[in-house]
């Protein structure tokens, strides 16, 4: 059953990379966006504290 599902009717080599690349791209964008946001917030908080 699981093997059948993973085989994707013989198209596993095209279906899984499509989902894999999409997941990597979107998760990387999310991680980069969140970390830049966190850094900007921390930096501004620091500057406002030292004013």
């Amino acid at each position, binding site marked *: 059953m699981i093997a059948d599902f993973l085989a994707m009717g013989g198209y596993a080599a*095209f279906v899984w990379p499509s989902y894999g*690349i999409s997941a990597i*791209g979107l998760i990387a964008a999310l991680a980069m966006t969140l970390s830049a946001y966190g850094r900007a917030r921390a930096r501004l908080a620091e500057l*406002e504290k030292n*004013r």
Partner: protein
Amino acid sequence: MLFEYANPARFMKLSGQLLPWFAGAASILIGAGLYMAFACPPDYQQGDTVRIMFVHVPAAWVAMMAYAAMAGASFFSLVWRHPLADVAAKTAAPLGALFTALALVTGSLWGRPMWGTFWVWDGRLTSFLLLLFLYLGYIALWNAIEDETRAARAAAILALVGAADLVIIKFSVDWWTTLHQGESIFRLGGPTIADVFLWPLFTMGGGYTALFVSLWILRIRTEILERRARVLMLEGG
């Protein structure tokens, strides 16, 4: 009305309230969409490669939507010279480039088994590749010009000129013979795709859109915070 929200402080307040809703919608819709994408039966012609469509088409939709948003913000920026419009346009570009790249790669991975080739230089594929170059050119232009106001103007003009490519992409399947299928969803007379495939497609489309909006809001907020930090630095903080 628009001007009220174009105030950075107001934008921070409003976007802070909207963000959890978009992020929540993105998680739920993409989660449900992924389940539906693998629960539906294989297509009688495409077999299981039809599942690639559920990540390909939404990526392509958002790629074009992001460009329309970028061009709209650029227009706003050129006409009313509002800095928030510059920020909105600038931050949409890297996201648009990502979704364009995802649409191209997943399309290629579908084309190989179905058309027998990863790539063909036809109207639809070429005009979509041009979209990627427009995004990259736009980002490069921002980085190439030191003065922020001048960079914003030049980039906005490029974004508006490039908007013609959206029209070319849309009608490319009607104007030229192509391997890419014609418009099968947003057409007169309704979609020509079976409901079992339309539901996962729309669910993923909604999820991708909500994810794009969430990321876009976060990037605009980041840029506003950075600009405020720069002002504080100049004040000698």
